[in-house]
């Protein structure tokens, strides 16, 4: 008997399943966006672009589905005769796909909205996104909170490839962090799980700062003076993500399936 290659199947399953959830998520975001734009048409308020709105909300979305992945999918795959290793490899590949497709779709929808606005000459104030971290100078808790909400961001109109890539790296990081937290909870229970939430926050914060420094965005006060080229930042982020993935693999490698 030959070893079957199951991880490509897992990858496409995870891509399409999580993709279905993502389309539900984007659908809701689109409805919210339309409501906001209609309100803006009448009262003249500024509205974020769809790309900006989804950029912010996707973090939480990916964090949540990362947690679900760790908790729910190992039992599913193992009971279908798939190894934990194939689940692990497949999930990474499927999720990288999702992390790339989600910002692309968001960008396309943003373009379409812009087109409609221009076509009909609608008076809607689309606001450009400001990274407001400078307001939270020297305050680590506020830094952490704002960093979750306002992550390094490139305006779609300024450099769309970079904008999509930053979006993708960012949401993939959140997924990995959610996955790590979920894996730690299911393997070791609440106390260790809570420690991994702290670790997760640190990872997100470091990823944020690295990207922000390199992109010349506002950063918390304590790293204000540092300059890091973007290549180094990306290599460092990939390294951090690899360490997290390695940890996830260690946590899930021998995971017991209970029912």
């Amino acid at each position, binding site marked *: *008997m*030959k*070893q*079957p290659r*199951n991880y490509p*199947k897992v990858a496409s*399953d995870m891509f399409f399943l999580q993709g279905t959830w993502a389309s539900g998520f984007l659908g809701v975001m689109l409805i919210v966006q339309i409501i906001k734009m209609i309100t803006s048409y009448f009262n003249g308020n500024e509205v974020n672009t769809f790309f900006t709105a989804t950029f912010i909300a996707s973090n939480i979305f990916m964090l949540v589905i990362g947690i679900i992945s760790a908790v729910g999918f190992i039992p599913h795959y*193992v*009971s*279908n*005769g*798939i*190894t*934990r*290793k*194939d689940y692990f490899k497949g999930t990474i590949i499927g999720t990288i796909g999702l992390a790339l497709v989600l910002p692309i779709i968001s960008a396309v929808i943003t373009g379409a909205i812009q087109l409609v606005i221009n076509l009909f000459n609608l008076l809607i104030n689309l606001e450009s996104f400001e990274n407001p971290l400078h307001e939270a100078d020297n305050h680590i808790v506020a830094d952490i909170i704002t960093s979750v909400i306002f992550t390094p961001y490139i305006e779609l109109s300024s450099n769309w490839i970079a904008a999509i890539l930053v979006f993708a790296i960012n949401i993939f990081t959140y997924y990995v962090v959610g996955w790590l937290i979920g894996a730690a909870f299911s393997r070791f229970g609440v106390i260790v799980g809570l420690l991994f939430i702290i670790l997760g926050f640190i990872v997100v914060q470091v990823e944020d700062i690295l990207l922000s420094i390199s992109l010349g965005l506002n950063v918390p006060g304590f790293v204000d003076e540092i300059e890091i080229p973007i290549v180094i930042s990306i290599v460092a982020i990939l390294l951090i993500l690899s360490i997290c993935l390695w940890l996830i693999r260690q946590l899930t*490698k*021998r995971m*017991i*399936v*209970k*029912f």
Partner: protein
Amino acid sequence: MRIEVNNVSVKFKNRYALKDITFTINENKIYGLLGRNGAGKTTLLSLLASFREPSSGSISIEGEDPFENAKLMQHVNFVFNKDYKDETDNLKNTLENVNRYRPYFDFDYANHLIQRFKLPMDKPLKQFSKGMQSAVSVTIGLASRAPITIFDEAYNGMDAPTREIFYQELLEDQSEHPRIIIMSTHLVSEMDYLFDEVLIVNIGELVLQEEYESLVTKGASITGPAEDVDSFVQSMNQLNTKQLGNTKSVMIYGELSDAERKAAQAKGLEVGPISLQELFIHLTEGEE
């Protein structure tokens, strides 16, 4: 396929769920795994399905460790009474999903089972009744035709007529597509006719492994007029007594010698086989 379990123990904190279990299963037949609640049946079967690893000892399937072994894991299907209360997918998608991962999955046969169990194809599984959910698990288990198929109390929740359909289908499909089927149960009296071989576990230990046919000759039931039966079984290990009017039936444990059989016949007593249920109760009772 050949399953070998060697000196396997599983320890939870300070309690042994399984203790030093050794057995071999290597024929395409139906094995009954009997044990009381908490005897360790599910833990033992979880090991075969790579849901967990033993604390000590070893398991091999076709000479290899099945844990995280992709080519073996796809051939072991562990069917348990899965709770689909959170499953928003319908049956059609669920089966298609299983079909992707089970190399011998037979869709036509799955459809046949769905019709027999009267399951709706397009309703979310979470809306299924308990009995229908059990039927879903059983359908997946049978239609996957995995060379090692394990049913762990999978029919819990089914009503008696539905269980009967399952037993029929199981026997029919097994005769056409023989494989190793392991069924754990405590509904012994209802399922005993399905088993070719029986394994009994009690408090984490394997009590016996034996062919069903030879197992039921390990004891006998003696039926006849009450006084005659009483005097005949007096010195024997009695498991159970039933009486209706003056007619008494006593189950005894231990093989009858030819002389004893003849003596029984001479007294006009009827000697019948013992039921697996009685044996099971006898072998697992009172040791807690």
